[in-house]
């Protein structure tokens, strides 16, 4: 596929926002915010940060639409479409994060049950976002449980890393807890992403030129795709970059999203330098942009079988 940057930003930004909220709510469950009003305000402010990330993601997604003014219609087909379910889950999650943050700001006792509802919306959003890609069965690189696991683990990793960086500035005694979980999620995300790369490298395309035109002969070559200019089919479904660049981007994201952030995180935690933790988040986020671009680009659409030779 030809990766759309709107989708790259949408999935990475909301992933970080979701992970950050889960980190904050976990801290609340573990007793943060129970004491001073300052801690409540801190949770409210961090909730606002999570909200900003998801809002930026929503904003990015608008650029994917040809007719954004009709976007409200996208909530209609939630019975059959994972995209429609995502369109419902995202605003629901945002609304609940907003309510949770406001409740904290005013020191309300309702934060706990609002928080649990938000956790539900957050998990639903992870599932919906992953299933948008995993549910297309003939995009074999996407149609796997790895897609869901990776989206979730990588969202958790970047969200917890963001929580670590925020805590390092505002509540240093919590940076260690968040940092430990950020470490765990980044390692787990790295392992599952590595396994999915391995799976995709072994994939054998189910569709062939033979099944595409229904002629059983081992030697078939396209001589003309039927037109000499470009078309939607030649632009949307292939990234158009050489295989070498894809390999480079793969190594870039493996280093940028996993190795470097882990090093920076460990250094930042051991030496207690908040700047390093913030840098770790930024580096990982950039790495995740490359990861998501690669994820989209790697999918090989069977329609490309029909568009191989201009004339």
């Amino acid at each position, binding site marked *: 596929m030809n990766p759309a940057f709107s989708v790259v930003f949408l999935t990475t930004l909301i992933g970080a926002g979701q992970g950050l909220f889960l980190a904050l709510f976990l801290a609340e469950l573990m007793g943060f915010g129970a004491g001073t009003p300052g801690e409540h305000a801190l949770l409210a402010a961090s909730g606002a940060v999570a909200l900003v990330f998801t809002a930026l993601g929503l904003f990015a997604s608008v650029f994917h639409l040809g007719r954004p003014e009709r976007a409200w219609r996208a909530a209609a*087909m939630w019975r059959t479409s994972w995209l429609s379910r995502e369109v419902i889950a995202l605003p629901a999650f945002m609304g609940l994060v907003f309510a949770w943050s406001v409740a904290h700001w005013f020191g309300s006792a309702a934060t706990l049950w609002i928080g649990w509802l938000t956790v539900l919306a957050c998990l639903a959003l992870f599932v919906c976002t992953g299933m948008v890609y995993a549910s297309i069965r003939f995009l074999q690189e996407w149609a796997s449980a790895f897609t869901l696991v990776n989206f979730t683990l990588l969202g958790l990793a970047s969200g917890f890393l963001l929580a670590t960086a925020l805590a390092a500035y505002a509540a240093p005694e919590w940076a260690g807890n968040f940092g430990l979980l950020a470490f765990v999620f980044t390692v787990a995300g790295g392992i599952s992403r590595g396994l999915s790369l391995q799976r995709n490298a072994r994939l054998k395309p189910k569709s062939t030129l033979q099944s595409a*035109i229904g002629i059983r002969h081992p030697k078939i070559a396209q001589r003309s795709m*039927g037109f000499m200019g470009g078309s939607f089919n030649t632009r949307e479904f292939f990234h158009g970059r050489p295989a070498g660049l894809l390999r480079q981007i793969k190594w870039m994201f493996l280093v940028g999203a996993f190795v470097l952030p882990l090093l920076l995180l460990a250094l930042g935690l051991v030496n207690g330098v908040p700047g390093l933790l913030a840098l770790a988040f930024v580096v990982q986020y950039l790495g995740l942009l490359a990861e998501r671009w690669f994820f989209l680009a790697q999918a090989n659409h069977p*329609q490309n079988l029909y568009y191989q030779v201009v004339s």
Partner: protein
Amino acid sequence: MTQLALVIDLNVCVGCHACVTSCKQWNTSGSAGPLVDDQPYGADPTGTFFNRVQTFEVGEFPNTQTVHFPKSCLHCEDPPCVPVCPTGASYKRQEDGIVLVDYDKCIGCKYCSWACPYGAREIDEERKVMTKCTLCVDRITDTKLPVAERKPACVLACPTNARLFGDVHDPDSVVSQAIRERAGYALMPEWNTRPANHYLPRRRTEIPVHAEDLVRVDNPLKIDGSQPEPPHHGAGREDFAT
């Protein structure tokens, strides 16, 4: 239940692109608005088409066949593009099985085109909505046209009659008979989309000429002995013809 579809005879398609141009002409002139043509005379022209004719070479020289392969929406009986649409703009008509896009509901998210393994959908860059073959729904249902003309533009335009149109659920229709008797097949059966459009395979065309057909033992021209008599090998095929 009716399922309208095209059956395309690869045995007689000559790759003239008349179906492509007639499709473009009809569908760019309809009430749904023109199909975009961006820089048609520029260096990098592009445009929206519902139908394409592609060319494949099968086999290895000198034993090759050139196969012209028209491709448009297959109007799958289980269309993967329909359930993924978040707005319900993509739908399959109950009454005749045509897969259509409601241009007033489409938000142009392109998700349906990702969910079509055949690449049958093209976004219209000007109207910013997804477009696709409608089986000329505005022609075939137009009661003001003579019955013989209530067919898709591509079917009417085909000079070799390579495109048949009809109801594949009616066992007595032209298309059902063609599929049944000439081994009509569907594209990419591995995805279980059950395309309604079918393709008829190439057939080997042979005119067998036997020596017996050229020389008959009872040839009256030779009986009188004025022509040199070729050697007889007994009775030939033609002698048993009746």
